[in-house]
């Protein structure tokens, strides 16, 4: 049986965050179908809520978009009431996608290897595929 590992999402996914009033929303994107199966299984609304809770306790809504290998999350009450009254330097939460990519999921070695080795779906020109975080962990 393959051993299990704790892996930060940054190794198998990419993400963007943005603001709407006091809510921050996140798109989380696997690089390939193998990675998507892992994030769909592991990254539930409850996991995201628990991940942010020590910093920004708020309800989380989640949607799955298998058609684009993505998950969508909304974290409520994340901006001190909204960007124009938020005292943080990152008042619009644009850096918060990076915080989501810190979330650790549990996968088997074989699952991780598959997600890292399957090619990226997108066209990346002449550069060789470089799934993020290959050298990490």
């Amino acid at each position, binding site marked *: 049986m393959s051993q299990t590992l704790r892996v930060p999402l*940054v*190794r198998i996914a*990419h*993400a*963007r*965050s943005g*603001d*709407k*009033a*006091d*809510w921050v*929303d996140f*798109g989380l*994107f696997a*690089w*390939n*179908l193998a990675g*998507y199966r892992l994030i769909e299984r592991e990254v539930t609304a409850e996991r995201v809520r628990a*991940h*942010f809770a*020590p*910093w*920004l306790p708020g309800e989380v*809504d989640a*949607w799955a*978009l*298998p*058609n*684009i290998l*993505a998950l*969508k999350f*909304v974290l*409520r009450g994340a901006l001190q*009431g*909204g*960007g*124009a*009254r938020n*005292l*943080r*330097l990152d008042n619009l939460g*644009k*850096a*918060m996608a*990076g*915080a989501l990519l*810190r979330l650790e999921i549990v996968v088997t070695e074989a699952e991780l290897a598959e997600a890292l080795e*399957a090619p*990226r*779906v*997108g*066209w*990346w*020109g002449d*550069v060789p595929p*470089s*799934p993020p*975080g*290959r050298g*990490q962990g």
Partner: protein
Amino acid sequence: MIGATYPVVPIHFPTFMKSIRIGAGLGFYGDNWEPVAASIEYGHVQFIASDHLAELTLAILQKDRQRDPSLGYARDVVPMLLRLWPLMRERGVRFVCNAGGLNPMGAAQAVLAAFAAKGWQARIAVVTGDDVLPRLQDVSTPADELAHLFTGEAVSQVRERLVFGNAYLGAAPIVQALDAGADIVITGRVADAALFLGPLVHGLGWTLGGATEPQDLNRLAQGLTVGHLLECSGQGSGGNFGSQGAWKDIPDLAHIGYPIAEVWEDGTALITKAPGTGGRINFDTVRQQLLYEVHNPHAYHSPDVVLDMGGIVLHDEGHDRVRLTGARGQAPGPMLKVVAGYRDGYKAEVTWGFSWPDAWDKSQAAIATIRTQLADRRIPHDELFVEYPGLNSAHGALAPLPDAGALNAMNEIWTRLVLRTPSKAATDGFGRLFPWLALSGPAYTCGFNGLHNTSELLGIWPTLIPRVRVEPNIQVDLLGGAP
């Protein structure tokens, strides 16, 4: 359909089907318009649509208008059009923007004046009717109308403090303006994607108002998706690509090309960019923008159509070409979204640095001194917010600080202190708490930044308003002569 099944094969479109090419303008007030020039010169676009208004931009424009009633619009539209108009006129490219902000007529007059000084003529259409501040301020408005969209609170809680309130209009007045022959359309608040949907409906003859057929609604949904993919300029073509490592694979961001869409009559769209420009259009960069700030991706509301992204297929053809199909539309509801802003106190911020040795302990002692002064002088405040740029200002408690020993071994520690207060006088006095500590505080301060950095805070009031209260007031005026 699952991504791994996408074949990378060229797609040939039937040549008898009409298409329109539209390019992204700015993504916010202050964006760079040189990539827009590249789209006009090398991207074969027929329209540019430019989004100057983020959620909070109207607050900035309101301050301008208070100083000078002729202002209140995004002033970058004037130098932008002085740069782009000669390129557009030569090629017959038409321009749609929401730079009018709180004063679309003022923006149009400023552009016409700048054009007149150059001896240029243009037909400019002005769209107004989005301002709903009077309705928000009207005490006779029923209590359940205009409640906070998220919390349900009644608008009476903030009524006295409102500074602006605008409904998001749809594409209809933009279509009307283009049908009337406008070269340039200047609006106030409209749904960002409507800036793009307007030219598509105009050029492709799609049914807009009252559409009920699935085919009509799905085409509008495709058009809305195109607008959403293009409205944030470089974010749709490889800019701000959140990732580890992969962002380095995006070429030449210094010369990024903003996204361009070619849209066919049936709604099929190709997302691309001008040849020779930097950035990247691919499955990854396009889908990061697709989900940006949409909340429920199965019901993305706009005044013109409700979009379900669940069936969208992004077919990566390679070489900066992504084909978009599968957006599904439903008829929009009877309400329009409104974003209002209200005065919500003030902030003052100072950033203060200390160097090794003991930089961390010294910063803690310094913060304690500031708290003592706030108490001694009875300076009214709601909170003193503290963060450490370079350590935890981006990820808060999710970026755990090293232990005190490691922190004290660091070369320097910067502390950002922000006072939140209902009192303007308190913010003005906050910066004066610091300078004397250069001589009388802990040693080796690296300096202060922002001693006079104070500003007013604004709360955002998102709400809904019945269409029937807004749409009868929408007006399209045509100014200027034939070019």
